């Protein structure tokens, strides 16, 4: 085998490794989530559920693009929603989803989450990973990864659009529910009306 041939193989291998390596990290998105977690961590220190819920709501309003999540949760039906339905649905979704976040984060009392890295799905779509700070091997949450899906809009403006724990994503699960409710009620705008009615019943309006 000639040296040149070996070299070529090495170069190809290096190229393949480059191509196969996960997408690059995104420092700005990591900073964005880090800032959010700093605020969240302050909230997590409180044992008082009411205070925590209030804090989470404030954070959700500040960092989460609720309208985007709301439309995503409709799946293919997002293209069929009327303007009237939209103006009823969006605020209901915000209230509903906020309580879902409040419940999901209820377990982290006294814990702190820190950013551990990120992966670009595209320049606009970044997943930032976080872990419990200082978790020792064998601890309850030692292996837990909490992921934050960050969307970068026009002019670099960032927002969180989904949160996942150990590979289970909230918005993905919400879409599953909502599509099922819409489909079971005849689909289309009729199904969306049914969904809005059920959401109203859930958030007590």
């Amino acid at each position, binding site marked *: 085998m000639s040296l040149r041939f070996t070299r070529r193989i090495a170069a190809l291998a290096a190229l393949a490794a480059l191509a196969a390596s996960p997408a690059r990290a995104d420092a700005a998105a990591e900073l964005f989530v880090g800032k959010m977690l700093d605020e969240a961590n302050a909230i997590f220190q409180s044992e008082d559920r009411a205070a925590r819920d209030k804090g989470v709501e404030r954070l959700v309003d500040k960092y989460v693009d609720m309208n985007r999540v709301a439309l995503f949760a409709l799946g293919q039906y997002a*293209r069929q929603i009327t303007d009237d339905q939209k103006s009823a649905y969006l605020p209901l979704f915000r209230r509903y989803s906020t309580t879902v976040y409040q419940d999901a984060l209820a377990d982290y009392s006294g814990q702190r989450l820190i950013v551990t890295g990120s992966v670009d799905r595209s320049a606009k779509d970044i997943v930032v990973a976080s872990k419990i700070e200082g978790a020792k*091997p064998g601890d309850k949450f030692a292996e837990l990864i909490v992921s934050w899906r960050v969307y970068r809009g026009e002019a670099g403006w960032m927002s969180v659009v989904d949160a996942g724990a150990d590979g*289970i994503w909230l918005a993905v*699960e919400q879409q599953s529910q909502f599509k099922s*409710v819409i489909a079971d009620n005849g689909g289309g705008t009729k199904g969306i009306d049914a969904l809005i009615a059920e959401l109203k019943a859930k958030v007590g309006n």
Partner: protein
Amino acid sequence: MRGWIISAPIAFAAALSSAFAQSGDASAIAPTASEAPVDPAATDETASELAASVEETDATGIHDPLEGFNRAMFKTNNAIDAVLLVPAAKTYRFVTNEPMRQGLRNFLSNAQMPTNLLNDLLQAEFERAGETTARFLINSTLGIGGLIDVAAKWGIAPHSEDFGQTLAVWGIGSGPYLYLPLFGPSSVRDGTGRIVDIATDPLFWISTDPAQYARYARFGATAVSFREPYLEQVEDIKEKSLDPYASFRSYYTQSRKRQIANGREDYEDLPEMGDELDEIE
């Protein structure tokens, strides 16, 4: 008559284990479970054949042509859960403390070692097979028969393997989602895997009376022990969700996917939340 005496406890134990299956997986074992294939190229073919025959798999990887049957089973299992498992789990919680419960979960997980090891090997995951073996040796001795997870404290984290995961790694698509009577969320592939798991458990092949009792005891203990930590969560999901059936289906599908990938996060096949929504917004 003897047949009935034998099958009744099995049915009872299986009923108990169902709600556990519903609630995902045990924290003592690796966080649970899923459905979508690891190697999309290898599994697409099977999946698309099935999909073409019935209906499309949706963007989140759920394919549920048997929804009518599944929903009926979901209802049945929930009724069994409410009558048998929840009261049993609450009583269990009342008479024990958390270190005791963690001990039992550790013990039961440790007893799963043969299934884990077999499937580590079938998937050619030799490093993980080594971890499984090391965990078993350490925990069975220093961990007092498996009650204390010493290995995890030493940095050898637990993981769980089953034959459904092995089939997935071998390139078999999940097939339709399947909600099994008594066993809970599954798929055609994972349900098949479950049968193999039962048959490859050493205890299954010993037919003495003590072995029978040990089997029933383990079924019952597993069901209650792994249902107990999820009492509040399952209640919460049922209360919050507009469609608990769809929620549990999604949790199972998502977590099973991650379990098959041996805990590695796969962000590639997340559904799009970008451009298409820009147009609507």
